[in-house]
């Protein structure tokens, strides 16, 4: 098994060799106080209210939040793919270059070459009337002047890279002839066409079943290790964040409420919102039929945000102090949060929950490795 694995490693490395590799750990993307608001039918909608985080080269950052928390909009802002009515402020520096306000022409040369994106619904992300091959070669030739034949070859390479079975045949087929998982692999292949430095997976696995989800996540991690591509994983699934991401940002009502490495975050959760989210995940250890704790209320309407801390109306440890918007700062080394009454430390149960999640996530990963080995042997 390992021989086969190493063989593929060289093949991929030779292909990826051309991408300039930054030493892992150096800051690739720094987002400072990002704000995005739309004017929809006369009402101002603040989708992102001051989001800040840093992504290092070759790292996986998970951005977690309920839908409507602005996580997707923040990602599209980086790519410049917002509707014309969007007003953007703050800063997002990618390899030192400011993305916000970059002229369209220059931004276009970055899309796919520096930052690429994978979307949620594989069924609708591919042009139904165009062959898979053509949709990939188009992306390849967008950023490098290669002949059609050469582009075709690289496209087949990419399909193999994303473990699409029988890549040569798939090259000529149409999207509707592929399964959801396969289509998502094609979308990823398209994203990798321009050898991007950063790949944003915007709920890339949400529309897939659990097993395919695990395969796609496994693929992303593999690409990250091999190609050194940094990955921003946008999801509402904390389990994914726990098992795959190095750092995690939790967003609520358009702003980051907690940001730390995965271990720190899950070991001692500080933000009541994150703790409530964790609590909402069913755990094997719990007795069967235990009532699943649910966060009361609805996520706030971005057009009419509550005063002070946006989670206040739904937070059980909220006090008068919370009327003052808490500062988002690095209260503990490597652990940021924005709350006046951070939880954790004194309550063992929380730690327990955090740890249990980490363990469960690890077991799932090991199980996948074992099965992958079996798959590999069968091929």
């Amino acid at each position, binding site marked *: 098994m390992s021989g086969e694995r190493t063989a593929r490693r060289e093949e991929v490395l030779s292909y990826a060799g051309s991408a300039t590799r930054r030493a892992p750990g150096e800051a690739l993307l720094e987002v400072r106080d990002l704000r995005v608001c739309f004017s929809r039918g006369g009402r101002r909608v603040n989708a992102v209210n001051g989001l800040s985080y840093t992504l290092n080269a070759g790292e996986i950052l998970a951005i977690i939040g309920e839908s*409507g928390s*602005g996580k997707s*909009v923040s990602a599209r802002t980086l790519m410049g793919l917002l509707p*014309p009515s969007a007003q953007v402020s703050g800063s997002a520096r990618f390899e030192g270059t400011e993305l916000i306000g970059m002229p369209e022409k220059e931004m276009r040369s970055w899309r796919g070459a520096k930052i690429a994106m994978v979307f949620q619904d594989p069924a609708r992300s591919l042009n139904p009337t165009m062959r898979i091959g053509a949709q990939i070669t188009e992306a390849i030739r967008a950023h490098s002047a290669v002949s059609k034949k050469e582009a075709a070859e690289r496209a087949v390479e990419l399909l193999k890279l994303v473990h699409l079975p029988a890549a040569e045949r798939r090259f000529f087929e149409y999207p509707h002839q592929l399964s959801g998982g396969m289509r998502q692999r094609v979308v990823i292949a398209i994203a990798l066409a321009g050898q991007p430095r950063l790949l944003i997976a*915007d709920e890339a696995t949400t529309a897939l079943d659990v097993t395919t989800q695990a395969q796609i996540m496994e693929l992303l991690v593999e690409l990250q290790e091999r190609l050194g591509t940094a990955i921003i994983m946008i999801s509402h699934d904390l389990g994914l964040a726990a098992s795959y991401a190095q750092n995690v940002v939790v967003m609520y009502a358009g702003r980051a409420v907690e940001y730390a490495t995965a271990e720190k975050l899950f070991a001692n959760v500080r933000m009541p919102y994150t703790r409530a989210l964790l609590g909402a995940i069913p755990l094997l250890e719990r007795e069967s039929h235990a009532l699943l704790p649910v966060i009361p209320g609805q996520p706030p309407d*971005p057009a009419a945000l509550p005063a002070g801390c946006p989670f206040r109306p739904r937070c059980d440890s909220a006090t008068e102090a919370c009327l003052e918007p808490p500062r988002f700062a690095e209260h503990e080394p490597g652990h940021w949060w924005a709350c006046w009454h951070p939880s954790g430390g004194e309550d063992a149960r929380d730690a327990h929950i955090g740890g249990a999640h980490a363990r469960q996530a690890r077991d799932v990963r090991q199980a996948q490795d074992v099965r992958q080995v079996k798959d590999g042997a069968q091929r």
Partner: protein
Amino acid sequence: MAAVDASSASAVLDAAPRARRAWARKLGLYIPAGLVGFVMVACFIGPLVLPIPAPVGGNVLDSGLPAFSPGHLLGTDPNGNDIFSRILHGGRASLIVTIAVNVLGLAVGGLLGALSAYIGGAVDTVIMRVLDVLIAFPSLVLTLAVAQSLGPSLTNTILALAFFSVPAVARVARAATLSLRELPFMTAAELAGTPWWRMLLRHIAPNIAPQLITFAMLGMGIVIVIEGALSFLGLGIPAPNPSWGNMISEGQASLSATPGLVIWPSLALFITVLAFNLLGEALRTQWSVR
């Protein structure tokens, strides 16, 4: 859920000032709606309220008066009837015809086309072949037959014209439904056991409606003009009652000498078609930004 970060609401980032854009979007709907309202009021209520002479029965002595002559804002036609009043009264007839024909076309044709594409197989073939027969059937023969057997009247004209518009709309609806049928949400809805008629109304109709409405709006002017031509075959709005169509088709007989007879009704037709198309497009942009 307030899908503020709706992943699909994206378009190339445009540098236009935001304020103008929001204001333009609202106005984009109000102007056409206002214009359509103005045309409707002018044609349906105007004749009752405005101090204008009757559209027929003008005195032959003051025939062919130029525009802005006393008592006749746009002058008179060769038979001495006031053109302005004929445009208003004629507008009513023409609007009734074109709206009726289009509504009939959309309803019957749209349903037929969507149904035939959705069910597919033998049903699709049969419906399409019957429509082919209707399309191939020479329109002149039908018009003459309707004119002579049923006689000229508004309803017969609408029937004859609908006879042409139904197959056309059906084909467009079928094409739109065909490419729609492959989408996963259709199969999902089917799996959920939705009966075919709910499928048509809840799923297919809203998706093909934008295209059909544009098709109908663009066809409005043409329907009015054809109605005029029918009056030569003994159908259409019978002379001397006015309709924009028959005013144009009679006026063109001496176009270079009396251009006004054609210009005024064509202008009225222009404003109406413009209003309806602007409204159609405004509805469509409102509709598609999900």
